[in-house]
Protein backbone atom coordinates (compact mmCIF):
# COMPACT_ATOMS: atom_id res chain seq x y z
CA UNK A 1 0.00 0.00 0.00
CA UNK A 2 1.26 3.48 -0.89
CA UNK A 3 1.78 5.66 2.14
CA UNK A 4 0.30 9.12 2.52
CA UNK A 5 0.40 11.73 5.27
CA UNK A 6 -3.19 12.88 5.18
CA UNK A 7 -6.25 12.30 3.00
CA UNK A 8 -9.53 14.18 2.90
CA UNK A 9 -12.65 12.34 1.71
CA UNK A 10 -16.25 13.48 1.28
CA UNK A 11 -19.19 11.08 0.90
CA UNK A 12 -22.28 12.84 -0.26
CA UNK A 13 -25.84 11.93 -1.21
CA UNK A 14 -29.25 12.25 0.40
CA UNK A 15 -30.46 11.34 3.87
CA UNK A 16 -31.29 7.64 4.21
CA UNK A 17 -28.53 6.36 1.88
CA UNK A 18 -26.13 5.58 4.70
CA UNK A 19 -23.79 8.42 3.78
CA UNK A 20 -22.88 9.12 7.39
CA UNK A 21 -22.51 5.41 8.09
CA UNK A 22 -20.07 5.06 5.18
CA UNK A 23 -17.95 7.83 6.69
CA UNK A 24 -18.24 6.26 10.11
CA UNK A 25 -17.06 2.88 8.84
CA UNK A 26 -14.13 4.36 6.91
CA UNK A 27 -13.07 6.44 9.91
CA UNK A 28 -13.45 3.49 12.26
CA UNK A 29 -11.37 1.29 9.96
CA UNK A 30 -8.58 3.87 9.88
CA UNK A 31 -8.75 4.88 13.52
CA UNK A 32 -9.25 1.56 15.30
CA UNK A 33 -8.15 -1.21 12.93
CA UNK A 34 -5.45 0.58 10.91
CA UNK A 35 -4.04 2.55 13.87
CA UNK A 36 -4.12 5.92 12.12
CA UNK A 37 -5.83 9.13 13.21
CA UNK A 38 -9.27 9.83 11.77
CA UNK A 39 -12.15 12.24 12.20
CA UNK A 40 -15.61 12.05 10.68
CA UNK A 41 -17.89 15.05 10.65
CA UNK A 42 -21.31 15.32 9.05
CA UNK A 43 -23.47 17.89 7.36
CA UNK A 44 -27.19 17.65 6.97
CA UNK A 45 -30.29 19.80 7.02
CA UNK A 46 -33.27 19.74 9.39
CA UNK A 47 -35.06 17.02 7.37
CA UNK A 48 -34.90 13.43 8.65
CA UNK A 49 -34.71 11.87 5.19
CA UNK A 50 -34.28 13.01 1.63
CA UNK A 51 -32.31 16.20 2.15
CA UNK A 52 -28.74 16.60 0.95
CA UNK A 53 -26.21 15.25 3.38
CA UNK A 54 -22.52 14.56 3.52
CA UNK A 55 -19.92 12.99 5.73
CA UNK A 56 -16.38 14.24 5.76
CA UNK A 57 -13.51 11.99 6.73
CA UNK A 58 -9.90 12.90 7.40
CA UNK A 59 -7.36 10.10 7.69
CA UNK A 60 -3.94 11.14 8.91
CA UNK A 61 -0.71 9.85 10.37
CA UNK A 62 -0.80 12.75 12.83
CA UNK A 63 -3.31 14.19 15.27
CA UNK A 64 -6.07 16.04 13.39
CA UNK A 65 -6.97 19.45 14.76
CA UNK A 66 -9.19 21.16 12.17
CA UNK A 67 -11.78 18.50 11.30
CA UNK A 68 -13.57 20.19 8.37
CA UNK A 69 -12.88 19.10 4.82
CA UNK A 70 -12.87 22.02 2.40
CA UNK A 71 -11.29 20.54 -0.74
CA UNK A 72 -11.36 16.75 -0.69
CA UNK A 73 -8.88 14.56 -2.54
CA UNK A 74 -11.69 12.04 -2.96
CA UNK A 75 -15.32 12.97 -3.60
CA UNK A 76 -17.95 10.20 -3.60
CA UNK A 77 -21.32 11.30 -5.03
CA UNK A 78 -24.48 9.27 -4.59
CA UNK A 79 -27.07 11.79 -5.75
CA UNK A 80 -27.38 14.40 -8.47
CA UNK A 81 -27.95 17.23 -6.02
CA UNK A 82 -24.95 16.21 -3.96
CA UNK A 83 -22.80 16.09 -7.08
CA UNK A 84 -23.88 19.53 -8.30
CA UNK A 85 -23.34 20.99 -4.86
CA UNK A 86 -19.91 19.51 -4.21
CA UNK A 87 -18.12 18.99 -7.52
CA UNK A 88 -16.46 22.42 -7.40
CA UNK A 89 -14.84 21.55 -4.08
CA UNK A 90 -12.82 18.62 -5.48
CA UNK A 91 -9.10 19.32 -5.21
CA UNK A 92 -7.02 19.55 -8.42
CA UNK A 93 -5.77 16.05 -9.17
CA UNK A 94 -8.47 14.60 -6.91
CA UNK A 95 -10.58 11.52 -7.50
CA UNK A 96 -14.28 11.65 -8.39
CA UNK A 97 -16.41 8.57 -7.71
CA UNK A 98 -20.13 8.37 -8.43
CA UNK A 99 -23.09 6.03 -8.60
CA UNK A 100 -23.54 5.38 -12.32
CA UNK A 101 -27.35 5.25 -12.23
CA UNK A 102 -27.97 8.12 -9.82
CA UNK A 103 -25.61 10.80 -11.04
CA UNK A 104 -25.23 12.30 -14.47
CA UNK A 105 -21.77 13.82 -14.80
CA UNK A 106 -21.07 16.78 -17.05
CA UNK A 107 -18.22 15.89 -19.40
CA UNK A 108 -16.38 19.09 -18.53
CA UNK A 109 -16.36 18.08 -14.87
CA UNK A 110 -14.70 14.71 -15.32
CA UNK A 111 -11.25 14.78 -13.71
CA UNK A 112 -8.33 12.57 -14.72
CA UNK A 113 -9.12 10.16 -11.91
CA UNK A 114 -12.80 9.31 -12.23
CA UNK A 115 -14.57 6.06 -11.43
CA UNK A 116 -18.20 5.03 -11.33
CA UNK A 117 -20.15 2.02 -10.13
CA UNK A 118 -23.88 1.24 -10.17
CA UNK A 119 -23.66 0.72 -6.40
CA UNK A 120 -27.38 1.08 -5.73
CA UNK A 121 -28.30 -1.34 -8.54
CA UNK A 122 -25.78 -3.91 -7.26
CA UNK A 123 -27.14 -3.53 -3.72
CA UNK A 124 -30.70 -4.06 -5.00
CA UNK A 125 -29.56 -7.22 -6.78
CA UNK A 126 -28.06 -8.40 -3.48
CA UNK A 127 -31.39 -7.89 -1.74
CA UNK A 128 -31.60 -4.32 -0.50
CA UNK A 129 -30.55 -0.93 -1.77
CA UNK A 130 -29.76 -0.02 1.83
CA UNK A 131 -26.36 -1.66 1.27
CA UNK A 132 -25.37 0.69 -1.58
CA UNK A 133 -23.08 2.51 0.83
CA UNK A 134 -21.24 -0.74 1.63
CA UNK A 135 -20.93 -1.61 -2.07
CA UNK A 136 -19.47 1.86 -2.55
CA UNK A 137 -16.97 1.32 0.28
CA UNK A 138 -15.84 -1.92 -1.37
CA UNK A 139 -15.41 -0.10 -4.67
CA UNK A 140 -13.52 2.74 -2.97
CA UNK A 141 -11.17 0.24 -1.32
CA UNK A 142 -10.22 -1.11 -4.77
CA UNK A 143 -9.67 2.18 -6.56
CA UNK A 144 -8.06 4.21 -3.75
CA UNK A 145 -5.73 3.00 -1.02
CA UNK A 146 -6.89 4.63 2.18
CA UNK A 147 -7.05 1.76 4.64
CA UNK A 148 -6.49 -1.98 4.44
CA UNK A 149 -9.45 -3.93 3.07
CA UNK A 150 -9.35 -6.11 6.20
CA UNK A 151 -9.65 -3.08 8.43
CA UNK A 152 -12.71 -1.97 6.45
CA UNK A 153 -14.30 -5.41 6.75
CA UNK A 154 -13.72 -5.43 10.50
CA UNK A 155 -15.23 -1.96 10.77
CA UNK A 156 -18.28 -3.10 8.76
CA UNK A 157 -18.75 -6.16 11.00
CA UNK A 158 -18.43 -3.87 14.02
CA UNK A 159 -21.10 -1.48 12.70
CA UNK A 160 -23.94 -3.47 11.12
CA UNK A 161 -26.69 -5.51 12.83
CA UNK A 162 -25.52 -9.11 13.48
CA UNK A 163 -28.15 -10.65 11.19
CA UNK A 164 -26.90 -8.60 8.21
CA UNK A 165 -23.18 -9.28 8.59
CA UNK A 166 -22.88 -11.83 5.75
CA UNK A 167 -24.94 -9.71 3.38
CA UNK A 168 -22.87 -6.65 4.10
CA UNK A 169 -19.58 -8.48 3.55
CA UNK A 170 -21.03 -9.76 0.25
CA UNK A 171 -21.94 -6.21 -0.68
CA UNK A 172 -18.42 -5.03 0.19
CA UNK A 173 -16.83 -7.82 -1.88
CA UNK A 174 -19.13 -7.08 -4.82
CA UNK A 175 -18.04 -3.45 -4.87
CA UNK A 176 -14.39 -4.35 -4.39
CA UNK A 177 -14.34 -6.93 -7.18
CA UNK A 178 -16.05 -4.53 -9.55
CA UNK A 179 -13.43 -1.95 -8.61
CA UNK A 180 -10.63 -4.35 -9.48
CA UNK A 181 -12.25 -5.01 -12.85
CA UNK A 182 -12.57 -1.32 -13.56
CA UNK A 183 -8.95 -0.70 -12.61
CA UNK A 184 -7.73 -3.53 -14.83
CA UNK A 185 -9.82 -2.18 -17.69
CA UNK A 186 -8.14 1.18 -17.32
CA UNK A 187 -4.72 -0.49 -17.34
CA UNK A 188 -3.34 1.53 -14.52
CA UNK A 189 -0.98 -0.91 -12.84
CA UNK A 190 -0.03 1.59 -10.11
CA UNK A 191 -3.58 1.26 -8.81
CA UNK A 192 -3.41 -2.48 -8.30
CA UNK A 193 -4.64 -3.40 -4.90
CA UNK A 194 -2.64 -4.24 -1.80
Amino acid at each position, binding site marked *: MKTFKEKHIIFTGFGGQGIVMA*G*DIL*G*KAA*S*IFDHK*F*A*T*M*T*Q*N*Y*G*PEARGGACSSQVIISLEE*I*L*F*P*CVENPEILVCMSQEAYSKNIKSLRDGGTLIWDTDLVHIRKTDIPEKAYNIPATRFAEELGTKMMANIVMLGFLSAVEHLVHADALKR*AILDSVPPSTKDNNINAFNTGREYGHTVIKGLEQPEHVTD
Partner: protein
Amino acid sequence: MFAKEVLTGIHFFNGDQACCEGALAAGCRFFAGYPITPATEIAESISRRLPELGGIYIQMEDEIASMAAVLGASWGGVKAMTSTSGPGFSLMMENIGLGVCTETPCVVCNVQRGGPSTGLPTLVAQGDMMQARWGSHGHYEIIALAPASPQDMFDFTIRAFNLSEQYRLPVIILADEVIGHMNERVIIPREDEIEIINRPKPTVSREEYLPYKAEADGIAPMATCGDGYRIHITGLTHDERGYPGMDAKTQDQMVNRLVAKIRNNRDKIIKTKNLYLDDANVVIVAYGISARSALQAVRDARNEGIKAGLIKLETVWPFPEELIRSLAPQVKAFIMPEINGGQMVLELERCTGGACPVTLVSNFGGSIIHPGLILSSIHKAIKGKS
Protein backbone atom coordinates in the same frame (compact mmCIF):
# COMPACT_ATOMS: atom_id res chain seq x y z
CA MET B 1 -26.48 -10.91 27.68
CA PHE B 2 -24.83 -9.12 30.59
CA ALA B 3 -24.56 -5.42 29.86
CA LYS B 4 -21.32 -3.64 30.67
CA GLU B 5 -21.33 -0.51 32.72
CA VAL B 6 -17.96 0.67 31.42
CA LEU B 7 -17.19 -0.06 27.76
CA THR B 8 -13.45 -0.46 28.31
CA GLY B 9 -11.67 -0.40 24.96
CA ILE B 10 -11.04 1.69 21.86
CA HIS B 11 -14.04 3.16 20.07
CA PHE B 12 -14.83 5.45 17.16
CA PHE B 13 -17.55 7.45 18.89
CA ASN B 14 -19.12 10.78 18.23
CA GLY B 15 -19.08 13.25 21.10
CA ASP B 16 -22.69 12.55 22.02
CA GLN B 17 -22.08 8.80 22.34
CA ALA B 18 -18.94 9.51 24.36
CA CYS B 19 -20.96 11.73 26.68
CA CYS B 20 -23.46 8.90 27.22
CA GLU B 21 -20.70 6.41 28.03
CA GLY B 22 -18.96 8.90 30.32
CA ALA B 23 -22.21 9.38 32.23
CA LEU B 24 -22.73 5.65 32.65
CA ALA B 25 -19.11 5.14 33.74
CA ALA B 26 -19.61 7.91 36.31
CA GLY B 27 -22.57 6.02 37.73
CA CYS B 28 -25.45 7.94 36.13
CA ARG B 29 -28.60 5.85 36.34
CA PHE B 30 -31.32 8.37 35.48
CA PHE B 31 -31.86 10.47 32.39
CA ALA B 32 -34.86 12.65 31.65
CA GLY B 33 -34.86 14.68 28.50
CA TYR B 34 -36.42 15.82 25.30
CA PRO B 35 -34.40 14.94 22.19
CA ILE B 36 -33.10 17.91 20.23
CA THR B 37 -30.49 18.26 17.49
CA PRO B 38 -27.51 18.17 17.94
CA ALA B 39 -27.85 16.52 21.37
CA THR B 40 -30.26 13.79 20.24
CA GLU B 41 -27.62 11.07 20.08
CA ILE B 42 -26.97 11.44 23.82
CA ALA B 43 -30.63 10.68 24.56
CA GLU B 44 -30.71 7.99 21.88
CA SER B 45 -27.63 6.18 23.21
CA ILE B 46 -28.55 6.44 26.86
CA SER B 47 -32.15 5.35 26.21
CA ARG B 48 -30.71 2.06 24.94
CA ARG B 49 -28.03 1.68 27.59
CA LEU B 50 -29.78 2.72 30.80
CA PRO B 51 -32.48 0.04 30.89
CA GLU B 52 -29.91 -2.74 30.44
CA LEU B 53 -28.03 -1.38 33.46
CA GLY B 54 -31.15 -1.15 35.61
CA GLY B 55 -31.38 2.60 35.18
CA ILE B 56 -34.27 4.78 34.10
CA TYR B 57 -34.70 6.81 30.93
CA ILE B 58 -37.73 9.06 30.59
CA GLN B 59 -38.62 11.09 27.57
CA MET B 60 -40.40 14.05 29.10
CA GLU B 61 -42.97 16.43 27.62
CA ASP B 62 -40.45 19.27 27.48
CA GLU B 63 -37.19 20.56 28.90
CA ILE B 64 -38.79 22.30 31.90
CA ALA B 65 -40.13 18.96 33.07
CA SER B 66 -36.89 17.19 32.13
CA MET B 67 -34.81 19.37 34.41
CA ALA B 68 -37.38 19.01 37.21
CA ALA B 69 -37.30 15.21 36.89
CA VAL B 70 -33.51 15.22 37.03
CA LEU B 71 -33.54 17.22 40.28
CA GLY B 72 -36.14 14.85 41.75
CA ALA B 73 -34.12 11.80 40.77
CA SER B 74 -31.00 13.21 42.36
CA TRP B 75 -32.88 13.77 45.63
CA GLY B 76 -34.08 10.21 45.25
CA GLY B 77 -30.45 9.18 45.55
CA VAL B 78 -29.32 8.45 41.99
CA LYS B 79 -26.90 10.28 39.76
CA ALA B 80 -28.96 12.01 37.10
CA MET B 81 -28.47 14.03 33.94
CA THR B 82 -30.14 15.57 30.95
CA SER B 83 -28.94 16.81 27.58
CA THR B 84 -30.22 19.53 25.33
CA SER B 85 -29.42 22.34 22.95
CA GLY B 86 -30.47 25.92 22.15
CA PRO B 87 -34.17 26.38 22.94
CA GLY B 88 -34.16 23.45 25.38
CA PHE B 89 -31.35 25.00 27.40
CA SER B 90 -33.41 28.19 27.68
CA LEU B 91 -36.37 26.21 29.03
CA MET B 92 -34.17 24.51 31.63
CA MET B 93 -32.96 27.76 33.13
CA GLU B 94 -35.50 28.12 35.91
CA ASN B 95 -34.97 24.62 37.23
CA ILE B 96 -31.19 24.88 36.91
CA GLY B 97 -31.56 27.76 39.38
CA LEU B 98 -33.69 25.52 41.58
CA GLY B 99 -30.89 22.95 41.44
CA VAL B 100 -28.35 25.58 42.49
CA CYS B 101 -30.56 26.81 45.35
CA THR B 102 -31.37 23.32 46.62
CA GLU B 103 -27.75 22.18 46.05
CA THR B 104 -28.78 19.25 43.90
CA PRO B 105 -25.99 17.30 42.19
CA CYS B 106 -26.75 16.70 38.48
CA VAL B 107 -25.31 17.22 35.03
CA VAL B 108 -26.69 19.15 32.06
CA CYS B 109 -25.01 18.68 28.70
CA ASN B 110 -25.74 21.51 26.27
CA VAL B 111 -24.55 20.67 22.76
CA GLN B 112 -24.60 24.21 21.40
CA ARG B 113 -26.09 25.12 18.04
CA GLY B 114 -26.65 28.47 16.34
CA GLY B 115 -29.15 30.82 17.97
CA PRO B 116 -30.98 32.94 19.01
CA SER B 117 -34.27 31.00 19.04
CA THR B 118 -34.51 27.92 16.77
CA GLY B 119 -31.52 29.32 14.90
CA LEU B 120 -29.37 26.74 13.16
CA PRO B 121 -30.49 23.32 14.46
CA THR B 122 -27.77 21.32 12.71
CA LEU B 123 -24.91 23.81 12.82
CA VAL B 124 -22.28 24.78 15.35
CA ALA B 125 -22.10 27.75 17.72
CA GLN B 126 -20.71 28.67 21.12
CA GLY B 127 -23.35 31.24 21.92
CA ASP B 128 -24.56 29.98 25.31
CA MET B 129 -21.44 30.72 27.35
CA MET B 130 -22.95 33.62 29.26
CA GLN B 131 -26.33 31.90 29.50
CA ALA B 132 -24.60 29.02 31.27
CA ARG B 133 -23.03 31.53 33.67
CA TRP B 134 -26.08 33.49 34.76
CA GLY B 135 -29.00 32.28 32.65
CA SER B 136 -31.13 31.58 35.69
CA HIS B 137 -32.21 34.51 37.82
CA GLY B 138 -30.50 35.63 40.99
CA HIS B 139 -26.85 35.60 41.95
CA TYR B 140 -24.98 32.31 41.99
CA GLU B 141 -21.83 30.50 40.93
CA ILE B 142 -21.80 27.68 38.42
CA ILE B 143 -19.34 25.14 37.06
CA ALA B 144 -19.16 24.63 33.30
CA LEU B 145 -16.78 22.46 31.28
CA ALA B 146 -15.94 22.77 27.57
CA PRO B 147 -14.90 19.57 25.77
CA ALA B 148 -12.87 19.82 22.55
CA SER B 149 -13.09 16.22 21.33
CA PRO B 150 -15.17 13.08 21.79
CA GLN B 151 -12.45 11.89 24.20
CA ASP B 152 -12.96 15.08 26.22
CA MET B 153 -16.71 14.41 26.13
CA PHE B 154 -16.14 11.07 27.84
CA ASP B 155 -13.59 12.38 30.34
CA PHE B 156 -15.35 15.66 31.11
CA THR B 157 -18.74 14.01 31.62
CA ILE B 158 -17.20 11.88 34.34
CA ARG B 159 -15.58 14.98 35.81
CA ALA B 160 -18.88 16.87 35.58
CA PHE B 161 -20.57 14.18 37.69
CA ASN B 162 -17.67 14.18 40.16
CA LEU B 163 -17.76 17.97 40.53
CA SER B 164 -21.55 18.00 40.86
CA GLU B 165 -21.44 15.36 43.58
CA GLN B 166 -18.52 16.96 45.39
CA TYR B 167 -19.82 20.54 45.34
CA ARG B 168 -23.54 19.77 45.19
CA LEU B 169 -24.76 21.75 42.21
CA PRO B 170 -25.82 21.30 38.58
CA VAL B 171 -22.66 21.13 36.44
CA ILE B 172 -22.98 22.16 32.82
CA ILE B 173 -21.11 20.64 29.90
CA LEU B 174 -20.87 23.24 27.14
CA ALA B 175 -20.21 21.14 24.08
CA ASP B 176 -21.00 22.21 20.53
CA GLU B 177 -22.48 20.65 17.39
CA VAL B 178 -19.13 19.72 15.84
CA ILE B 179 -17.87 18.00 19.00
CA GLY B 180 -21.25 16.29 19.47
CA HIS B 181 -21.45 15.02 15.91
CA MET B 182 -17.79 14.35 15.19
CA ASN B 183 -16.53 10.79 15.38
CA GLU B 184 -13.03 10.23 16.65
CA ARG B 185 -11.10 7.67 18.62
CA VAL B 186 -12.26 7.41 22.23
CA ILE B 187 -10.31 5.32 24.70
CA ILE B 188 -12.33 4.10 27.65
CA PRO B 189 -10.11 2.94 30.52
CA ARG B 190 -10.69 0.06 32.87
CA GLU B 191 -13.35 0.63 35.49
CA ASP B 192 -10.80 0.61 38.32
CA GLU B 193 -8.83 3.36 36.58
CA ILE B 194 -11.76 5.79 36.63
CA GLU B 195 -11.97 8.12 39.63
CA ILE B 196 -15.50 8.39 40.96
CA ILE B 197 -16.60 10.89 43.60
CA ASN B 198 -19.89 10.45 45.42
CA ARG B 199 -21.85 13.09 47.32
CA PRO B 200 -20.92 13.55 50.99
CA LYS B 201 -23.35 11.72 53.28
CA PRO B 202 -24.29 12.74 56.82
CA THR B 203 -22.29 11.14 59.61
CA VAL B 204 -24.22 12.69 62.51
CA SER B 205 -27.34 11.29 64.15
CA ARG B 206 -30.82 11.97 62.78
CA GLU B 207 -31.53 14.37 65.61
CA GLU B 208 -28.38 16.42 65.01
CA TYR B 209 -28.61 16.55 61.19
CA LEU B 210 -29.20 19.89 59.51
CA PRO B 211 -29.53 19.37 55.76
CA TYR B 212 -27.93 22.70 54.72
CA LYS B 213 -25.28 23.07 57.41
CA ALA B 214 -21.89 23.13 55.74
CA GLU B 215 -18.84 21.39 57.07
CA ALA B 216 -15.38 22.98 57.11
CA ASP B 217 -14.99 22.58 53.34
CA GLY B 218 -18.15 24.61 52.72
CA ILE B 219 -20.21 21.61 51.58
CA ALA B 220 -23.25 20.28 53.44
CA PRO B 221 -23.52 16.47 53.63
CA MET B 222 -26.55 15.34 51.64
CA ALA B 223 -29.15 12.95 52.94
CA THR B 224 -31.51 11.82 50.22
CA CYS B 225 -35.05 10.54 50.39
CA GLY B 226 -35.15 7.18 52.09
CA ASP B 227 -31.91 7.64 54.03
CA GLY B 228 -33.99 8.17 57.18
CA TYR B 229 -32.99 11.78 57.77
CA ARG B 230 -35.47 14.63 57.83
CA ILE B 231 -35.03 16.85 54.79
CA HIS B 232 -36.87 19.84 53.39
CA ILE B 233 -36.25 21.03 49.86
CA THR B 234 -37.37 24.44 48.71
CA GLY B 235 -36.44 27.08 46.19
CA LEU B 236 -37.30 29.74 48.72
CA THR B 237 -34.40 31.27 50.60
CA HIS B 238 -33.81 28.85 53.46
CA ASP B 239 -31.79 28.32 56.61
CA GLU B 240 -29.66 25.36 57.65
CA ARG B 241 -32.79 23.35 58.41
CA GLY B 242 -34.11 24.00 54.91
CA TYR B 243 -36.96 26.13 56.22
CA PRO B 244 -37.85 29.39 54.46
CA GLY B 245 -36.41 32.53 55.98
CA MET B 246 -37.78 35.64 54.34
CA ASP B 247 -35.19 38.17 55.45
CA ALA B 248 -31.92 39.73 54.34
CA LYS B 249 -29.86 37.84 56.90
CA THR B 250 -30.95 34.37 55.77
CA GLN B 251 -30.53 35.45 52.13
CA ASP B 252 -27.02 36.68 52.85
CA GLN B 253 -26.04 33.49 54.64
CA MET B 254 -27.49 31.17 52.01
CA VAL B 255 -26.25 32.93 48.87
CA ASN B 256 -22.90 33.59 50.44
CA ARG B 257 -22.44 29.89 51.02
CA LEU B 258 -23.62 28.91 47.51
CA VAL B 259 -21.07 31.34 46.08
CA ALA B 260 -18.24 30.60 48.51
CA LYS B 261 -18.29 26.83 48.06
CA ILE B 262 -17.29 27.38 44.42
CA ARG B 263 -15.09 30.48 44.75
CA ASN B 264 -13.09 29.06 47.64
CA ASN B 265 -12.41 25.86 45.73
CA ARG B 266 -11.45 27.52 42.43
CA ASP B 267 -7.97 26.03 42.41
CA LYS B 268 -9.43 22.52 42.64
CA ILE B 269 -12.17 23.13 40.06
CA ILE B 270 -10.40 25.17 37.36
CA LYS B 271 -8.44 23.19 34.81
CA THR B 272 -6.59 24.56 31.82
CA LYS B 273 -4.25 22.87 29.40
CA ASN B 274 -1.30 25.17 28.78
CA LEU B 275 0.63 24.50 25.61
CA TYR B 276 3.78 26.33 24.41
CA LEU B 277 3.08 28.87 27.13
CA ASP B 278 6.45 29.23 28.91
CA ASP B 279 8.10 31.62 26.43
CA ALA B 280 4.94 32.77 24.65
CA ASN B 281 4.42 36.46 23.93
CA VAL B 282 1.11 36.01 22.09
CA VAL B 283 -1.33 33.82 23.99
CA ILE B 284 -4.49 32.33 22.52
CA VAL B 285 -7.19 31.53 25.07
CA ALA B 286 -9.69 29.10 23.59
CA TYR B 287 -12.24 26.47 24.49
CA GLY B 288 -14.30 23.70 22.87
CA ILE B 289 -13.97 23.17 19.14
CA SER B 290 -12.25 26.58 18.77
CA ALA B 291 -9.35 25.30 20.90
CA ARG B 292 -8.47 22.84 18.12
CA SER B 293 -8.28 25.61 15.51
CA ALA B 294 -6.28 27.64 18.02
CA LEU B 295 -3.72 24.86 18.55
CA GLN B 296 -3.30 24.50 14.79
CA ALA B 297 -2.70 28.26 14.51
CA VAL B 298 -0.21 28.17 17.41
CA ARG B 299 1.75 25.34 15.78
CA ASP B 300 1.73 27.17 12.42
CA ALA B 301 2.98 30.33 14.16
CA ARG B 302 5.72 28.38 15.95
CA ASN B 303 6.83 27.02 12.57
CA GLU B 304 7.26 30.63 11.47
CA GLY B 305 9.35 31.35 14.57
CA ILE B 306 6.61 33.26 16.39
CA LYS B 307 6.38 32.59 20.11
CA ALA B 308 2.69 31.80 20.35
CA GLY B 309 1.09 29.81 23.16
CA LEU B 310 -2.29 28.36 24.03
CA ILE B 311 -4.44 28.21 27.12
CA LYS B 312 -7.18 25.67 26.48
CA LEU B 313 -9.97 26.27 28.96
CA GLU B 314 -11.26 22.91 30.14
CA THR B 315 -13.43 24.63 32.71
CA VAL B 316 -14.92 27.84 31.35
CA TRP B 317 -16.72 28.66 34.60
CA PRO B 318 -15.14 29.51 36.97
CA PHE B 319 -12.82 31.47 34.67
CA PRO B 320 -9.04 31.15 35.35
CA GLU B 321 -8.77 34.72 36.56
CA GLU B 322 -5.48 34.36 38.45
CA LEU B 323 -3.69 32.74 35.50
CA ILE B 324 -4.74 35.54 33.11
CA ARG B 325 -3.88 38.25 35.65
CA SER B 326 -0.39 36.82 36.14
CA LEU B 327 0.29 36.52 32.41
CA ALA B 328 -1.17 39.86 31.29
CA PRO B 329 1.85 42.05 32.20
CA GLN B 330 4.27 39.62 30.49
CA VAL B 331 2.65 39.07 27.10
CA LYS B 332 2.22 41.24 24.02
CA ALA B 333 -1.37 40.23 23.37
CA PHE B 334 -4.16 37.80 24.08
CA ILE B 335 -6.36 36.42 21.30
CA MET B 336 -9.64 34.59 21.82
CA PRO B 337 -11.47 32.69 19.08
CA GLU B 338 -15.10 31.90 19.82
CA ILE B 339 -18.22 31.16 17.82
CA ASN B 340 -20.35 34.00 19.14
CA GLY B 341 -20.14 37.78 19.00
CA GLY B 342 -17.70 37.89 21.92
CA GLN B 343 -18.72 36.44 25.27
CA MET B 344 -15.81 34.82 27.11
CA VAL B 345 -13.60 37.54 25.62
CA LEU B 346 -15.35 39.99 27.97
CA GLU B 347 -14.11 37.94 30.90
CA LEU B 348 -10.63 37.77 29.36
CA GLU B 349 -10.56 41.56 28.94
CA ARG B 350 -11.73 42.05 32.49
CA CYS B 351 -8.96 39.85 33.85
CA THR B 352 -6.18 41.51 31.81
CA GLY B 353 -7.19 44.83 33.35
CA GLY B 354 -5.94 46.69 30.29
CA ALA B 355 -2.38 45.40 30.74
CA CYS B 356 -2.24 44.15 27.14
CA PRO B 357 -4.47 44.17 24.05
CA VAL B 358 -7.14 41.49 23.64
CA THR B 359 -8.40 40.51 20.18
CA LEU B 360 -11.55 38.58 19.38
CA VAL B 361 -11.64 36.25 16.35
CA SER B 362 -15.23 35.19 15.88
CA ASN B 363 -18.27 34.43 13.82
CA PHE B 364 -21.91 34.16 14.88
CA GLY B 365 -22.23 30.42 14.22
CA GLY B 366 -22.74 28.01 11.36
CA SER B 367 -19.07 27.17 10.87
CA ILE B 368 -16.02 26.69 13.02
CA ILE B 369 -13.20 29.19 13.08
CA HIS B 370 -10.50 28.58 10.52
CA PRO B 371 -6.97 28.33 11.96
CA GLY B 372 -5.83 30.76 9.23
CA LEU B 373 -7.96 33.54 10.75
CA ILE B 374 -6.35 33.01 14.14
CA LEU B 375 -2.89 32.95 12.55
CA SER B 376 -3.59 36.32 10.82
CA SER B 377 -4.62 37.70 14.16
CA ILE B 378 -1.33 36.46 15.66
CA HIS B 379 0.57 38.22 12.84
CA LYS B 380 -1.30 41.47 13.51
CA ALA B 381 -0.65 41.22 17.25
CA ILE B 382 3.09 40.82 16.66
CA LYS B 383 3.23 43.76 14.23
CA GLY B 384 1.11 45.97 16.44
CA LYS B 385 3.72 45.98 19.18
CA SER B 386 7.04 45.74 17.37
